[in-house]
């Protein structure tokens, strides 16, 4: 209480200090804001050191894989015409020159090789489409060539021949939007620009960032305006409204300044901070202002009234602020950094808003001229409101609630049961492309391209046989023995030192050179020993190349066949695909020759032949230089996490039935997979965040009311609300995605406010009157109205989100508004009904004989 009195005294005695201090804070925070950095990379949903993410990055590094923009050209009449291919050629050439594009890995018809037969016994490597075809005959020849090459067919040109794609690998995902704009500019100069589509996760993610930024710039002020208008409707006083608006603005500026100033990037969630904070921040000022207006009599010293009002409201306001803050802060328990940052900053903002409210609002009132203070009285709420629609509705509700308490409880009981069923039906799913509306051009592109191609979504299944220490030791001791026999141990030691390399493969290569050299220059007596050592290393080198062996390749081939037979996998490309294609062309090109080379040496030489093409390095996207790890590039038509999960299950099942060869490991990488990982983390994280918030708030309620029963009662409306809302989500089949997940914890913090006010007032009134029906009568006059009004303010404050062009904002806006509405209704309808059923009201409200007598 001491702190509380000091704060109020400071505020009333030194209003100017309060203003200057707040102004200084706001300025300090505001100067941070221009250095804002937006980050919409879903990868950042996982901490940098998260195991799957680290692995994903390693895979990208080891296999030189890049994120890709997919540009598609669709022509229902078929793309193999001189005109269409000319457009494609022009576009691909232009893209190749763009900054930020990994030029050597760009994939399009004019960038890849054709391997074909040129007469008997002659193999031909040539560019598939070095220059655009001039005649239909040339275009037909390209079609015939593409359809023969499994690596290209249905990847570069769709199987139906109606779409062709340019796969644009990019150095950094954060450049996708700029590149997509540059590509669009080139497309616009072509003959039929409307035939082009752009898809791929990077472009969706980066475009989302750009649109999010615009969204923030529009939604936040719009939310402010909505709240302003709403308060005007309720209070019709600029004086009242400006105080509340100052609190809201200051909270938003300071919170965002703090976030940006600490160097955090603004993620999808944190971009919504202003919209969350504004409605929450105005609520407390509204409480103080309206109560002050009620109590203050013109001519009096406003200080006395202020002290009384603030003193009386301080505790409930503190508790509602803390509970809201706890709800948001519980997001820190999710393992998702952007969500943690969002939660903690909103929690900070709420507490900051509370302090600003109790310090600024009194200072503001004290500084008003007496005439204006007098005018405040005209806006006293009680008188105007009793006959209002809201007032009448609430009294009716109160009577109904008591009269039908038994029925109501049955109804809510049934509702909870149905909701629980609904919750069990929840589909956990997300897809960053779906963050755009149906008619967004990225969504359209996604639909069109994935209807032709086996998929614009990538996942990589990595098979790996880690280096075997045993094999390395065996080679080492073999060399030791040979050296000892020829008495060249010292030379060997020296050579090993020179040959040392962090990469074992390089080390062996260096050893081979050294032994080769030594065998040549050594005494004839030692030559044999060096040649033996050379042979030993070379044998080890060949044997180490595991993914050239028939065992490994056969396993992969069967796995690929299994995957390709599934509806969820569009297509898989891998080392077996490449080997079989080149092997076929080496052996005359007949379909019956489309098979794996018979042994590891044959495989190595098939690869050597492939390396005589224009793009030998494409090999290293499929296998590492030491042939100990390989990737299957899996294309998916859908980026839905559910579909990716099904593919994962498919592989798991296959591996369970067909165990991996000894010591081989299988792991996933790729953006589509990473999305599944962070979603899993989020779902589990949200559960623990929700649980911890629930119990924290429950304990706070028990402490606040100093009663277990009322504490439990106060949790009732929000429990019903959360179950109901998530039950509805489950029943209507709305996917449980990131925004929905985050909502649960927020709901808790926000909707418990209603219970606090309601129960606090009910108990106070009952203690005064000692009469239940009189208590209910009064509760439905003041407190219910305040709750309803606040619910409306907060709910309406979120409505600007409904017109947002980005789906997560709409989702958050809609569900928050719904949650506010439902929890307000549940509070005023269910709580009285339940209390009515509790017989011993004295015990419930802690009425002792003494208090009653007082």
């Amino acid at each position, binding site marked *: 209480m001491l702190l509380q009195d000091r704060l109020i005294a400071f505020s009333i005695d030194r209003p100017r200090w309060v203003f200057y201090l707040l102004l200084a804070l706001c300025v300090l925070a505001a100067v941070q804001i221009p250095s804002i950095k937006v980050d919409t990379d879903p990868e950042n949903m996982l901490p940098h050191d998260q195991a799957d993410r680290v692995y994903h990055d390693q895979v990208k590094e080891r296999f*030189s894989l890049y994120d890709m923009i997919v540009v598609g050209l669709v022509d229902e009449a078929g793309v193999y015409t001189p005109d269409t291919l000319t457009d494609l050629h022009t576009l691909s050439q232009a893209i190749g020159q763009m900054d930020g594009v990994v030029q050597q890995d760009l994939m399009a018809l004019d960038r890849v090789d054709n391997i074909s037969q*040129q007469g008997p016994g002659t193999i031909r490597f040539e560019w598939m489409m070095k220059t655009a075809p001039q005649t239909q005959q040339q275009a037909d020849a390209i079609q015939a060539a593409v359809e023969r090459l499994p690596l290209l067919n249905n990847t570069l040109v769709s199987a139906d021949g109606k779409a062709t794609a340019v796969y644009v690998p990019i150095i950094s995902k954060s450049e996708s939007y700029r590149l997509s704009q540059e590509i669009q500019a080139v497309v616009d100069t072509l003959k039929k620009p409307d035939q082009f589509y752009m898809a791929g996760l990077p472009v969706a993610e980066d475009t989302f960032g750009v649109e999010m930024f615009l969204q923030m710039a529009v939604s936040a002020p719009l939310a402010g305006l909505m709240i302003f208008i709403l308060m005007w409707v309720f209070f019709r006083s600029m004086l009242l409204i400006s105080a509340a608006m100052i609190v809201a603005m200051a909270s938003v500026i300071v919170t965002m300044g703090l976030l940006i100033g600490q160097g955090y990037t603004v993620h999808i969630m944190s971009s919504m901070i202003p919209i969350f904070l504004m409605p929450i921040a105005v609520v407390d000022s509204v409480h103080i202002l309206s109560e002050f207006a009620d109590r203050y009599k013109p001519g009096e010293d406003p200080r006395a009234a202020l002290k009384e009002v603030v003193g009386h409201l301080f505790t409930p306001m503190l508790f509602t602020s803390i509970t809201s803050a706890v709800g948001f802060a519980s997001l820190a328990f999710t393992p998702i950094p952007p969500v943690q940052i969002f939660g903690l900053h909103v929690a900070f903002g709420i507490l900051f808003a509370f302090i600003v409210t109790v310090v600024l609002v009194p200072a503001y009132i004290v500084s008003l001229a007496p005439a204006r203070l007098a005018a405040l009285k005209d806006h006293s709420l009680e008188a105007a409101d009793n006959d209002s629609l809201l007032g009448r509705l609430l009294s009716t509700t109160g009577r109904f609630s008591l009269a039908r308490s038994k029925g109501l409880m049955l109804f809510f009981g049934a509702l909870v049961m149905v909701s629980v069923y609904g919750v069990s039906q929840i589909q956990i799913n997300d897809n960053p492309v779906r963050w755009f509306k149906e008619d967004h051009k990225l969504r359209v592109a996604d639909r069109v391209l994935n209807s032709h191609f086996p998929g614009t979504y990538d996942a990589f299944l990595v098979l790996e046989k880690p280096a075997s220490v045993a094999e390395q030791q065996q080679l080492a001791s073999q060399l030791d023995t040979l050296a000892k026999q020829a008495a060249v141990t010292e030379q060997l030691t020296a050579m090993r030192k020179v040959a040392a390399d962090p990469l074992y493969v390089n080390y062996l290569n260096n050893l081979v050179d050294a032994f080769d050299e030594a065998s040549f220059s050594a005494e004839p007596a030692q030559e044999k020993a060096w040649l033996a050592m050379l042979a030993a290393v070379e044998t080890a080198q060949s044997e180490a190349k595991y993914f050239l062996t028939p065992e490994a390749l056969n396993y992969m081939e069967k796995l690929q066949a299994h995957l390709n037979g599934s509806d969820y996998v569009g297509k898989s490309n891998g080392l077996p695909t490449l080997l079989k294609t080149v092997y076929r062309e*080496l052996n005359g090109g007949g379909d019956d020759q489309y098979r794996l*080379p018979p042994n*590891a040496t044959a495989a190595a030489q098939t690869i050597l032949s492939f390396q005589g093409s224009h793009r030998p390095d494409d090999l290293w996207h499929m296998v*590492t230089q030491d042939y100990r790890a390989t990737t299957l590039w899996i294309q998916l038509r859908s980026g839905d996490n559910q579909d990716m999960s099904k593919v994962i299950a498919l592989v798991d099942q296959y591996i369970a039935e067909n165990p991996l060869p000894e010591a081989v490991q299988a792991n996933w990488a790729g953006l589509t997979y990473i999305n599944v990982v962070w979603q899993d983390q989020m779902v589990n994280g949200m559960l623990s965040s929700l649980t911890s918030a629930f119990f924290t708030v429950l304990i706070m309620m028990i402490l606040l009311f100093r009663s277990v029963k009322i504490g439990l009662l106060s949790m009732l409306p929000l429990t019903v609300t959360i179950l109901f809302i998530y039950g509805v989500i489950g029943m209507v089949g709305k996917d449980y995605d990131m925004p929905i997940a985050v909502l649960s914890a927020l709901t808790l913090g926000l909707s418990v406010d209603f219970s606090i006010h309601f129960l606090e007032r009910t108990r106070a009134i009952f203690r005064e009157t000692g009469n239940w029906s009189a208590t209910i009568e009064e509760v439905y006059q003041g407190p219910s109205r305040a709750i309803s009004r606040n619910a409306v303010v907060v709910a309406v404050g979120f409505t600007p989100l409904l017109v947002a062009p980005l789906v997560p904002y709409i989702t958050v806006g809609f569900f928050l508004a719904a949650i506010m509405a439902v929890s307000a209704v549940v509070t005023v309808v269910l709580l009285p009904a339940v209390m009515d059923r509790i017989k011993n009201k004295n015990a419930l409200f802690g009425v002792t004989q003494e208090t009653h007598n007082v």
Partner: protein
Amino acid sequence: MFKSHLQGIGQRTLLALMLVSPLSLAAELTDAQTIVSQANVASYYRGDDGRSEARMLIRDAKGREQVRQFTILRRDRENGGDQDFLVAFSRPADVRNTVFMVSKHTRADDDRWLYLPGLDLVKRISAGDKRTSFVGSHYFYEDISGRNLNEDTHQLVDTTAEYYVIDATPKDLASVEFKNYRVWIDKQTLLPMTIEYKDSADQLYRKVEVLKVAQVSGFPTVTQSRVSDLRSGGSTTMQFRFIKYDLGMEAAVFSERSLRQPPREWLRRPKS
């Protein structure tokens, strides 16, 4: 008249002597065609035949390496004209005895063969594009056997104290991946020391450099060179050792039979 004077010493030897003797420096060359012709001879036609062992280190932008080791046999049919190459691989062990053979023609398409012992397969490689990778390295097939001079037009753009600087423009743009290239030819040895290739956007994307030159049997000979792919950041270094000229190889060494049965006597490393 003039020709009869030369008969005793052999045209090529005389030419070589001219190139390395200080006398030849007196007259600076001014004709681009002459310079590139002589540079072509200096790089690919030393002696009547030659043998060397090459070691390639293919390194990607991330420092990962692959090794290729092979022996090159060459025999000229005509100085500055048609010649034969046979490339026999010895490492990595799993491609050992793979043989690549070229019969180079200045007035027609080259003939190329590949023998893959693991598949017991002789394949002709189509005349088509010679600017494809040579066994996965950053060298092209064309870099190994030499680009036909008639495919480009040459212009002497500068003569510095050390180099003739020549710009080459392809006659048929569609047959190559570059727009033009510039060569720095050493005035003394007439070896092209640096070649820089530019793409259609005038971006430098490929560079060939000679890193080491040594005198072998009196011929200035490249013993180490490197090709860099400036786009990917990868490069291949090639080192030549055990170089010998004028070994007296017969034409039969370069017959199709040699693919399956490599000429061991020439492939064996000379012990001196």
